[in-house]
């Protein structure tokens, strides 16, 4: 389990580095609002993983499905909003 967590965190770190390099290379500007939304997305996804994992341990099917939908759909929506905010800001600028 610890190995899985380590591997997952490593992958997240590599992705974060790649995105940062992309931002630097393409001079993508990110406002404080976008950073805030990114932070909310990370926290929401982290909490969602915890909640879903907890329901998987309890083996409660309805709770697993419901929590996946609630946290998953909201995370996707947040991601879309972040994408749009950054895109529009850089297009305007």
């Amino acid at each position, binding site marked *: *389990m*610890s190995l899985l*967590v*380590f591997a*997952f*965190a*490593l992958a*997240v*770190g*590599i992705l*974060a*580095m790649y995105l940062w*390099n992309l931002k630097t290379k393409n001079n993508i500007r990110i406002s404080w609002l976008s950073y805030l939304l990114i932070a909310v997305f990370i926290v929401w996804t982290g909490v969602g993983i*915890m*909640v879903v994992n*907890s*329901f998987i*341990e*309890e*083996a*409660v*099917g*309805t*709770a697993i499905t*419901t*929590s996946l939908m609630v946290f998953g759909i909201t995370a996707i929506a947040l991601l879309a909003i972040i994408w749009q905010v950054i895109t529009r800001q850089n297009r305007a600028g």
Partner: protein
Amino acid sequence: MSNKEISRKQFLKGAAVTSGAAAAALAASSLSVSADSGTSVDYTKGKARDEMGTASVTRNLPEHFYKRIEPRAGYIGTTKVNGALEQFDAREHGFAQIVRRASSGDWEGEPGDWGPMLLAAVQEKKKVRAAASAEETEDYTWSGAFQIAMDRWHVNLRPGQWDPAPINSNKLELSPAEMTAKIKKVARWFGAEQVGICEITDDLKPYFYKKGRASGYYTAPHPDYADEGRDIPWPYPYKYCIVMGDIADPNTARAQRGPLVEASAKIACADSDFPPLYLESIIRTLGYDAKGSPFSDKDIIEAPIAVAAGIGELGRSGLVISPWGAHMRLSEVFTNMPLVPDKPMDFGLQDFCKACKKCADNCPAGAIDGSDEPSEQHVTAKVVKWAWDEKKCLSRRLAYGCSSCQTVCPWTKPDNMVHEIGRMLAKEKAFAPFLYKLDDFFYGREPAMHTSDEYAPWR
């Protein structure tokens, strides 16, 4: 260096960031308070369980889950008591009624009395078994065998059968505070997830039987069954009661009804005989008088004693509910060892039960009162609590097996980070309506039941 190459500075920066993220994630996962830290047993793969069942809770009840309240006149913990009534004869409680009537064939009584209700339950049970599939029939056969396994412990530990250890003339002299801390730690080592101590005072007299059972049978029938009973003395010869709460196996209890939950409950019942007798022998060897209370040798109605000992609060269902949940089995040992009694606890259950009503909505027998507010009930005292119809409850349990109220209770949850937050919030009155609705949202107002396929040890 070309555009595609990575500089040494970039590489080191990248490695630092990913290592930091990985370390943080690893640290966060180790902070998880789940029992899944290598000590719990996955019985679904046929592994051995520990002697007190599969523990879903391994740590002491955190202090931020509850507050201690001062004992008050006219209250047992958070439950109001308006006066004492007559003490109870244990030979009249539901389990004893089943054994006596099934053994004698006497089902006489007015409609709504024990006799006719239990007869209807027995007949319903026969119908259920006759309609069962081959697989269900085998499940009931195993469950019945588990019941007999439990019953043999009860029979062989009935009053007069147990040979207590002699009281050692050399006393282990420790301060009451130190002795209390050590005996609680020992009780937890024997498998009790919670331990509390109360002093036996006059206001607890209504909850001591006037006559206890002498028979150890909890299954029937027995052609020569008789129970002369035994007098329970008052003043009671012991000053303190050590109450132990064993959190039951959640996965088999979540079957709610049927052979799986009956097998689970019966073995938990037998398991709860051992810690009080272990402690009795230990305390007597330490030089103090003690009497353990296995299930077939009870002198008390357990719930009020457990509430006085600070184990939990009395819930709508009539069960003693702790922040760990409603699936807690109680056992006791009485002693004159100098101890420090615990104060009762308050974790907001009364306000939560007023709003929630999930046990009442899910009770297949309709035995639990669904009113908003509790009212005065006359049992062995005038207790302000929600009404519970023991005849409906036990009749249903006899016919089908049942643990619905225990397992649908929103407090009955494993110990992990998510429910840690829930337990902390739920003790505040303002959060109660939101939290039980959240429980309904994720688990359903009528939670799904676990099946024998998934969890029965014989499958």
